[in-house]
């Protein structure tokens, strides 16, 4: 009995999550897609390292950290652009995007240097 109800609960939970997420605006969904893509790339790199070995460790580090870094920065952009967020209501989204680009520039400069 408990199991069946927990299964029902899981199903209801999944359904409600899905419906709540469908209500988010399109630009936020695009950012979420980008975050998912970069995390997925990072995972691929980790699996590759597990198979092949980590010899040029700096290359591995810079690859994984660049994926994680862009994911984190995209999440920050999403926070700042989200209209439901009261703290950032007087921050124009163009400014948020400009900050995002600047931070990415610095990140990738460092990555290029560290890639070896």
């Amino acid at each position, binding site marked *: 009995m408990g199991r069946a109800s927990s299964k029902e609960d899981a199903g209801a939970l999944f359904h409600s999550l899905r419906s709540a997420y469908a209500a988010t605006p399109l630009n936020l969904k695009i950012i979420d897609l980008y975050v998912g893509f970069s995390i997925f790339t990072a995972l691929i790199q980790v699996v590759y390292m597990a198979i092949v070995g980590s010899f040029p460790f700096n290359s591995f580090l810079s690859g994984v950290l660049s994926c994680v870094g862009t994911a984190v920065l995209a999440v920050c952009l999403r926070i*700042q652009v989200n209209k439901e967020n009261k703290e950032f209501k007087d921050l124009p989204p163009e400014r948020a995007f400009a900050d995002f680009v600047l*931070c990415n520039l*610095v990140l990738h400069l460092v990555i290029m240097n560290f890639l070896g």
Partner: protein
Amino acid sequence: MAAPESSAAAVPTLYTNNALRNAFGGVLAFFILLLIGVMAFSIRLFSVIKYESVIHEFDPYFNYRVTQFLAKNGIYEFWNWFDDRTWYPLGRVIGGTVYPGLTLTAGTIWWLLNSLNIPLSVETVCVFTAPIFSAFASWATYLLTKEVKGTGAGLTAAALLAMVPSYISRSVAGSYDNEAVAIFALIFTFYLYIKTLNTGSLFYATLNSIAYFYMVCSWGGYTFIINLIPMHVLLCIVTGRFSSRLYIAYAPLVVLGTLLAALVPVVGFNAVMTSEHFASFLVFIILHVVAFVYYIKGILTPKMFKVAVTLVVSVGLAVCCAVIAVLVALVASSPTKGWSGRSLSLLDPTYASKYIPIIASVSEHQPPTWPSYFMDINVLAFLVPAGIIACFSPLSDASSFVVLYIATSVYFSGVMVRLMLVFAPAACITSGIALSQAFDVFTRSIKFQLPGIASNTEVDAAETSSSTAEAQNDVEKSEETSKNRPSKKSKKKEKEEKPLPKAKAEKKRLLALPLDSSVISLLLLILLGALYVVHCVWAAAEAYSAPSIVLTSRSHDGLHVFDDFREAYAWLRHNTDVDDKVASWWDYGYQTTAMANRTVIVDNNTWNNTHIATVGTAMSSPEKAAWEIFHSLDVKYVLVVFGGLVGYPSDDINKFLWMVRIGGGVFPHIKEPDYLRDGQYRIDSQATPTMLNCLMYKLSYYRFVETDGKAFDRVRQTEIGKKYFKLTHFEEVFTTHHWMVRIYKLKPPKNRIRGKTKKPKTKTSTTSSRAKRSGTGKKNPWH
């Protein structure tokens, strides 16, 4: 009507009055900051005025030599420099083992000035780098405290930091060491972190990471930042102050900061593999989990959220346990649990004395005594608790950070004297807050009670308008933070807001202290500040300005200057070959390579314990054994510092116990009890025979009896034990004017060996002819 008209007319004048007041305040603050910078620079110039513009101590000479190399050869050569003039025969990879921030900064300043045709020498730039950066550090303190409490507190904290003796001691003109630049980088990084936390802007987060990179380049103490900030984030999460600004402040810093730290060759992969950084990764993961939880909570209904929680907890707990088990196994597999020796000695203060005698022997690594607290931070010692309480009166993210900073830095300053330096900015910030609040209360009391009703009403109107503005800000803030906090708090704030302005004005009038007591208290506070200034100037002038390479003493016949160190190094530079190797105790390594330009065996970097133990064993052995050891290292000259004639207490005989301990730690035939009589090291007639025969004794006291006939050692305050002896394997080549530095040369090995031949038979025929010439007369000293 008259009343509304006058009030209507009063409002614009009030507004312009306020704007004028703000503008005047801004200009005043700017000039005060300028004066604070000038004061910070000038209070550190005592050593240049009293002695000369010279580099102090030991470590700065290494930095100076590296900067000279950088200025001469450029940055590519500097990154790839392999130094073969130290740690002979091992050498040292300078590019990979030095923190480049300080030398690159001074090199850049020198290059910039020279390209503008201002021909300052490298030495001048090196000497004055520290005072300039201390001015920058006080400006950074102003910015940091302004973010926490406001402009008044900022100016007070900046003025306090400009003069605090603890910071002066490591940043006088001439003290060209890492801390000169690193403290500025530390405070600036903290300022940018707090600014990001307060504004939530990604731009400041980027600047924060770059400032952290500068800190990693400059000093090994950067691990303090990368552990304090995660601790603060954890504190904010646990006390319910999680917000999206916290995420923006912390997450980019971890990723970008780790990458930038890995860029610096000294740190390299330690940025991801040592335990000092694990805290940041752990809190990174925790932050993401918490952020995700808040996000899910925001988009789900409460019932669904409960279901999600039970589901996740049951599944997630198993995964968590597995991950933690793997992590614990990884960390426990290394003997020091992944921490470096220096960090371990901070966490466990007894670690160094048990396992690593070199770390224990450095005088800066000893715990401080109580008087040194009062000497180093003076009045701030009892303003700090008041500041901590003031930080709590509205507790914001920034003020909780200040409280955490001061708590951790007090603990670490209690472990190691050197870390009083990290405690000083925290003390200045909290004391600045306390002093500024106190001034605020007293001046407000005086203002309320000054004669003149017009000024009172104007002040009242201004106070009520400012208090309504404050109330509006409070409501806004409560709205922003109410999204993630329980709704009870926001409701309470809204209720309070309406009766707030009137109650505040009345409360303020009630809280005003009596006029005379507030005036007297104000005067006493100013007196306190004056006493602090007097103490700081005295400490800077008398206690911390000694270059320690030149000593002075006053006696009835005037000022004596002891310039023996530079005399000895100059002698070495001019009277020996370029490739000659000089052996001495590791204290003098940096100075020897920088000033005498000769290859040394061990120096202050102390990275190779066995090599230092070899030199220590040689100094503790009898002459022949010591000669063998030195000869195997190609040493030509041995340098010994001796203070017995003039009473200089930091000479090699006083450091001898460390030579025995470190040598005995690696070579078991050196046993410390052999040198002790009744548990003490003695050099008088009661000394043990091992002590009287060891190389250090002989090289220090050779011909000492010729100075005053009685061989009275002024430091140990006794006559020495063995007064008349000859050296068999060494010959004295130079002793400085006050006998403070003595240089000996290794005698070359004899060409023939009488008695048992160790060499093959073919050689004895060629040496036998020489044996006839020099065989008669003198006793053979070699057997």
